[in-house]
């Protein structure tokens, strides 16, 4: 089955950890992930600035490794990310900000990428919505 996965909760939220475990299990079960889309507070999952206590699961680090190793499409909504200060190098330069929080394998893009994934996937699975 082709899954699109949307994450709306911050990196430290239990639902973000569940999203990560679901994504890993989906691939392990032979399914396909057409795209991971991070929206609202979900953009914090892509932040390289998150510091997780040593005895807790480092969710942003795990996402980064998982997306890189599996060569997945990890898209962060650009408008949601700008609002929350999760900028890549290009946006930091554009808005003259010092802090760059996100880089490869993440891509900053628009909501069209969410709609595109919804159309492409058999199922959309959401984590951390209201």
């Amino acid at each position, binding site marked *: 089955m082709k899954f699109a996965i949307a994450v709306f909760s911050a990196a430290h939220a239990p639902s973000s950890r569940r999203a990560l475990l679901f994504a890993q299990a989906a691939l392990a079960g032979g399914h396909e992930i057409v795209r991971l889309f991070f929206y609202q507070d979900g953009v914090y999952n892509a932040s390289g600035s998150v510091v997780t206590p040593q005895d807790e699961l480092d969710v942003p680090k795990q996402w980064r490794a998982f997306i890189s190793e599996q060569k997945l499409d990890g898209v962060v909504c650009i408008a949601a990310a700008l609002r929350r200060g999760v900028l890549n190098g290009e946006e930091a330069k554009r808005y003259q900000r010092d802090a760059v929080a996100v880089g490869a394998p993440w891509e900053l893009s628009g909501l069209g990428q969410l709609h595109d994934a919804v159309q492409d996937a058999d199922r959309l699975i959401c984590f951390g*919505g209201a």
Partner: protein
Amino acid sequence: MAKSLLIISRQAPWSGPGAREALDIVLAGGAFDLPIGLLFLDDGVFQLATQQDAKALQQKDLSANLQALPMFGVEQLFVCADSTAQRGLDSSALSLEEAQVLAANEITALIDRYDQVITL
């Protein structure tokens, strides 16, 4: 055929960016000509209360964006009757006249009609 998507908006307009961000998904879908629906549920119905004063909160009003929905080709607009009644809102005097007021059993059928659902 394009897959249909229902957005269920459950956040009050001034509780954070949630309501605006839910609406942004709807507007983006409309811009791509996708079959998209929007249901206001629970505190989300407060987005349709009239006489809101965004300026008092130094914020931007959502209502202009809401009124633009039909222009973006989004005509499937729904409001939960129970949610408005529980919050003392008159469902016949909401800011989005195009929205159909639905009872609980009709909402079950509505959700069933859509291919995909996002609740925000």
